[in-house]
């Protein structure tokens, strides 16, 4: 972090896969975080999940040699008060996000930047329902956020310069590089990746290849780092299905309609890494 810039104060909404991962990224860069989670059970386990991610970051050499930021866990959006940037990383559902961001807006000052980590909902769609639409922009962190250095930055048509500048300061403090793209369903990465994962799952559904074979081919022939179905497990299949629904509803692209196999896995609680089983099995919670 540069000497002249004060350490940004960050609040994160949602202690799920992404909220935990983004919080870890901030803490290892010395940035203090208020992590707000509405579900009591999720909240109770939040600190332990962050601890595990901190260990993973250290194991994989992603941890700078600086003192860790302080973590406060809270049940209330009111505790976002005083933050320079609030990152919303809650469930992928437009109504829930608008409600949560409106609560945050009421708690923070007019100069706090609001960031949505949505995978697919257009920034403008969320902004138009907020009291200060100019304060909102999209930053699409990937999972695990502390290993992936590049983020997709989405400026909505009403996003103001001040919000953009605050978020750029935060990204610098976090050692991330933003690539700015236009607004629209799924932006770039989800639009391309989620449809592709849906196709990969459909191939398995049709019995033409196993999940392992799909991933092996995509990795070894096409250079995909982890394979689409291992990626689905890492994302969380429930979140993937929510994102595909957003894409399907907003683009009409039938390729984005979540396939039966993905829907069945969600119904069976096979959500991927976070539930211990998806296309593959995992030690629970890893």
């Amino acid at each position: 972090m540069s000497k002249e810039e004060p350490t940004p104060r960050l609040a994160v909404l949602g202690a799920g896969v992404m909220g935990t991962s983004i919080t870890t990224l901030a803490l290892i860069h010395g940035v203090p975080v208020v992590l707000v989670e509405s579900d009591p059970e999720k909240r109770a386990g939040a600190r332990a999940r962050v601890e595990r991610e901190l260990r993973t970051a250290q194991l994989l050499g992603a941890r700078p040699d600086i003192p860790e930021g302080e973590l406060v866990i809270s049940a209330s959006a009111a505790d976002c008060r005083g933050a320079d940037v609030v990152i919303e990383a809650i469930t992928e559902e437009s109504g829930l996000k608008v409600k949560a961001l409106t609560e945050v807006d009421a708690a923070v000052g007019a100069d706090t930047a609001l960031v949505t980590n949505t995978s697919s909902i257009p920034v403008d769609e969320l902004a138009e329902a907020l009291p200060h639409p100019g304060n909102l922009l999209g930053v699409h962190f990937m999972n695990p956020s502390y290993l992936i250095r590049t983020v997709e930055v989405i400026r909505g048509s009403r996003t103001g310069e001040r919000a953009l500048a605050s978020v750029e300061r935060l990204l610098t403090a976090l050692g991330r590089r933003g690539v700015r793209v236009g607004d629209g369903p799924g932006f770039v990465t989800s639009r391309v990746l989620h449809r592709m994962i849906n196709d990969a799952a459909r191939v398995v559904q049709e019995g033409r290849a196993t999940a392992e074979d799909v991933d092996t081919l995509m990795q070894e022939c096409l250079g995909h780092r982890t394979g689409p179905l291992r990626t689905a497990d890492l994302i969380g299949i429930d979140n993937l299905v929510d994102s595909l629904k957003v894409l399907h509803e907003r683009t009409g692209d039938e390729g984005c309609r979540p396939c039966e196999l993905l829907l069945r896995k969600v119904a069976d609680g096979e959500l991927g890494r976070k539930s211990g089983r998806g296309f593959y099995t995992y030690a629970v919670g890893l």
Partner: protein
Amino acid sequence: MSNPTADRQLTAEGVAAELQKFLRERTKTDWEPDTDLFASGSVSSMFAMELVVHVEQTFKVAIAGPDLKIDNFRTVNAMTALVLRLARADDTA
């Protein structure tokens, strides 16, 4: 309360065999003791944390500080050396 480490009879062969069994189950591949698990790309770096937790739980050791680094988990031999060193440190503590 009994010392959880006192009745451990850890040998390099025993530790290595257990690790190879676990790796075979989880990756469906046989691993030579000196093969880098992560070099081929067939084992993801995210699996590394699962290995850490498995090693801690199975051999009742705590891995922290400078020991928590990927180089200690690259090969069965490296993990075995770590486990024996930590268990010995525990027993003499």
